[in-house]
């Protein structure tokens, strides 16, 4: 119920904004206009949304796995960290237009290059937060494990990793929120389908309401994915805050 009220409230705010600022339809159409297009072009939009949703979900899955693996590797090995951490940071600074030709060269124009591009955007918050979490393990637990003759691998997997799950959840939330833009960026690598593609195309042809209908769906997908991830993340960390009495 409440999310519905919020949604309606936000749409009304948007409608009011377009009225109040007098912003032209071809720059920011009011939701009423967008709604009309949404109904008229429903089939087209759904088709493209399915495409983008697939990219988002694959990208997020790949990003989460890749991010988690990298964070664990960084936490386990100073050697790897020294070499690969700068690469990971730098990977965030590279605009899609610089890397797209490379991806196409290596992965072709199919889904693979798009998912790879999306994952490149999505994986970073996961690496970063999880690695931070892995660095902040309670010293008491580490001492205890040391007296128990635990090998570093067991400490990492059985103590540091579970202890860092709240941090992972934090990273996964960010990853879910950027998944839509990851998918759209992936579509830049050379797509002929997807909401991002539809958006670019309709913006180029002045069909702003259609572009915003696509954007609206993209946002819905984003919210849905975010909430799904949020729920999963909460389930991941059922215990109280680390110091809980």
């Amino acid at each position, binding site marked *: 119920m409440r999310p519905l009220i919020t949604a309606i409230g936000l749409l009304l705010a948007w409608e009011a904004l377009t009225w109040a600022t007098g*912003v*032209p*339809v*071809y*720059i920011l159409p009011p939701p009423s206009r967008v709604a009309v297009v949404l109904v008229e072009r429903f089939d087209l939009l759904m088709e493209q949304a399915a495409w983008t949703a697939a990219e988002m979900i694959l990208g997020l899955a790949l990003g989460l796995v890749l991010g988690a693996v990298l964070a664990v590797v960084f936490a386990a090995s100073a050697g790897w960290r020294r070499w690969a951490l700068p690469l990971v940071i730098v990977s965030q600074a590279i605009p899609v*237009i610089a890397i*797209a*030709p490379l991806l*196409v*060269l290596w992965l*072709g*124009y199919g889904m693979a290059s798009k998912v790879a591009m999306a994952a490149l955007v999505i994986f970073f918050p996961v690496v970063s937060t999880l690695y931070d979490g892995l660095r902040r393990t309670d010293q008491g637990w580490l001492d205890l494990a040391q007296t128990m003759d635990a090998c570093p691998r067991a400490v990492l997997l059985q103590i540091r990793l579970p202890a860092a799950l709240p941090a992972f959840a934090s990273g996964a939330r960010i990853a879910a929120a950027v998944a839509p833009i990851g998918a759209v960026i992936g579509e*830049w*690598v*050379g*797509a*002929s389908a997807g909401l991002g*593609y539809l958006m*670019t*195309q309709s*913006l*180029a*042809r*002045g*069909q*702003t309401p259609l572009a915003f209908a696509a954007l609206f769906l993209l946002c819905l997908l984003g919210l849905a994915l975010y909430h799904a991830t949020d729920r999963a993340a909460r389930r991941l960390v059922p215990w109280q805050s680390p110091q809980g009495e």
Partner: protein
Amino acid sequence: AQEKVRVLLDWFVNPDHAALVVAKQRGVFAKHGLDVELIAPADPNAPPKLVAAGQADYAVSYQPTLQMLVAEGLPLARVGVLVAQPLNSLVALEDSPVKTLADFKGRKIGYSIAGFDEALLGAMLESAGLTLKDVTLINVNFALTTALMSKQVDGVIGAFRNFELNDLELNKAKGRIWLVEKNGVPAYDELILVAKRETVDVARTKKLLAAIAEATAWLKANPAEAWAIFSKSGKELDNDLNRLAWKDTLPLLADDPVALDRARYETFAAFLVKRGLIKQAPATASYLRDMR
């Protein structure tokens, strides 16, 4: 006092904008009482919309874009022309097995601007007895030459004849080119100036176009000196590609930026309707303003 004028370019500064840049640098605009600011966006879609929204006085745009935007209801009007012929073309590598348009059957073609490039290509293929269904279309979004040279595609539509061939040459490749207007597409104006329909300032526009005409005449007469001025106006402009493109571009610049061929717009609008890009041709009177 100088009248302030803001012109949005269609894309990064390049030799297509020679007349504008030279007119500004040599003080031709100032001579006509104008203080012109040239702004380059990274997204070629935005400028006409921003002009329609009153965020700038003029935008450099393309005839097909203008006609599609007008058909969608944007209050825009064409007030002048910079390049009065198509620049777009279909390009393949010379050493590829594609020798004629018909050879594209079953091959991959890259394109940039969804919808429009498809329409051009469709018309061209039909002129050679093929249809769009005979080729695989791939959106390469940018980097047309890269896609071509790395053989990811066999041809690209959307290549500008004055640029992409030179770009290939600089990368030690040779291209084979099919001009759109020679292969089933009606001729159109590639680069035009648009303004917001309701607020066209006729007097100022006339001054602007006069300055452009004067600059065009001067730079065609003094290409070397003009290149020096152009390449010094921005450090990033002085490069081999621009140097090569410069000589190919100058002859293409419209000598008379005021010229207006209504029939050309009507024919092309009909073409757009036929290709399904717009539903109905807008009345030319509504968006063509003669500045004579």
